[in-house]
């Protein structure tokens, strides 16, 4: 017969170990891609002499994700730890590019949108790669999308139930936090000049059982990318409006020309039609009074 003190010590040790395992079980997954790494690889001082961009309207726009450059995971891992979430799959990239492209399409000065698959972009490809894309896809301007996503996973107090084994299957003790930034930098390829940029951010919080943590992280990762893309679209619209104003007010910085072979027409706007209709109405009234 063991003394009761023995049981108390054992139980106390178990609580301490469990507490320690909870406090140490923070994981951090990080995926990112960088426009700077893509355009200026290995250059500590990325200076490129940009020329004055000549925008031939209507313009052809390309959209591409720059190649991912970094994936890392830090923190305490256990047998329950989820495997590393893969970086953004190509299908999702195309879907995100389409979302952003649809927003550009509505502008009358945009002639076409080309969604450029990742396979066409070389890591560190720089402007040489962009020149190739310009030739291959016939685009004048490219929106380079980069991203930075960090996913934190913490175990809450509910994770104590994992000691029962059944708890690991039913209790959502894993708290995850997904922070994403998608950034679009719009470059005029020929002149190497960045026309404007806009970010889109998102934060998603979720929870999961250790068993489906990996699946939950993937779901949150994708959802967070889409949410960030939505935010990006709104910010892009604002930046595009500002850019149009800038082009009008700073003709020394940007030159706008009409693309050879374009279609144009004379169009009367409603303002003139209203004025002339008013004159017509007055003439009719005058004739009626005269008669």
């Amino acid at each position: 017969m063991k003394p009761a003190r023995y049981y108390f010590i054992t139980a106390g040790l178990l609580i301490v170990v469990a507490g320690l395992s909870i406090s140490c079980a923070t994981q951090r997954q990080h995926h990112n891609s960088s426009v700077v790494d893509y355009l200026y690889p290995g250059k500590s001082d990325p200076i490129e002499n940009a020329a004055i961009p000549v925008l031939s309207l209507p313009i052809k726009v390309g959209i591409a994700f720059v190649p991912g450059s970094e994936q890392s995971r830090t923190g305490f891992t256990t047998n329950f730890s989820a495997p590393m979430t893969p970086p953004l799959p190509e299908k999702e990239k195309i879907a995100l590019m389409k979302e952003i492209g649809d927003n550009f399409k509505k502008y009358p000065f945009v002639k076409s949108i080309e969604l450029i698959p990742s396979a066409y972009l070389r890591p560190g490809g720089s402007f040489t790669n962009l020149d190739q894309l310009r030739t291959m896809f016939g685009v004048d301007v490219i929106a380079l999308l980069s991203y930075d996503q960090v996913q934190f996973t913490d175990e809450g107090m509910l994770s104590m139930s994992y000691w029962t084994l059944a708890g690991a299957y039913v209790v959502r003790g894993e708290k995850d936090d997904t922070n994403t930034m998608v950034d679009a930098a719009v470059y005029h390829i020929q002149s190497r000049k960045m026309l404007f940029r806009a970010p889109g951010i998102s934060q998603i919080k979720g929870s999961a059982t250790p068993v489906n943590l990996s699946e939950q992280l993937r779901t949150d990762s994708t959802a967070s990318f889409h949410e960030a893309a939505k935010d990006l679209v709104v910010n892009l619209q604002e930046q595009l409006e500002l850019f149009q104003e800038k082009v009008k007010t700073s003709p020394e910085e940007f030159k706008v020309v009409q693309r050879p072979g374009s279609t144009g027409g004379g169009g009367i706007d409603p303002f003139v039609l209203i004025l002339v209709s008013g004159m017509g109405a007055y003439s009719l009234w005058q004739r009626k009074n005269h008669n």
Partner: protein
Amino acid sequence: MATQKSQLRDSPNPVWTLMVVAAGILAYVVPNSASLIVYDRAAILSGEVWRLITGNWVHFSLSHLVYDSATLGIAGWMIERRGYPYYKSLYIISPILIGAGLLAAQPNLQFYGGLSGIACGAVVYLTLQGLRDAGPWRWICLTVLLLTTGKIILESAMNAFAFVKVDDAPFAPVPLSHVLGGMTALLIFCWPFARDLMRLKTPGVGS
């Protein structure tokens, strides 16, 4: 009140205006006619010179046709009803000047269509002639002339991104056609004064 009476006399129906507008509608509704008469820079330079003039009667969408035809129809109707002189010259000269002006000044423009240049010319001509009339009509004409001229200047200066989409294809407004239409109207309006001035200066004339 001779001017008032001349303003309001019963002139014949606006036949010329109706013909010009009807030609535009015909070109829109008759299948494949637009491709034969549209302003096409390459075709003009290879000898199809009629396109310089006929391009004015081609429209790229129903709204394009409606706005242009309605404006020209109303302005032309007032010009003819009020018996303002030389309006036929406007309908003949302005399409030629617009086509030639675009060919010379807009080398990047491959296709062009629209009656708006002639319509702008008609509005400017109507308001210039109206300045010679009496009563409120003169002030109405002065106001519309100033607003229309201001609008033409503004659209010429701020044209950078002023694209519109017709049937999902980008379409660039061409303010130069409005400028050329307005200038034609001014020339035709000034022509009688210039002619009288020349007659006075010529020895033996008017004595």
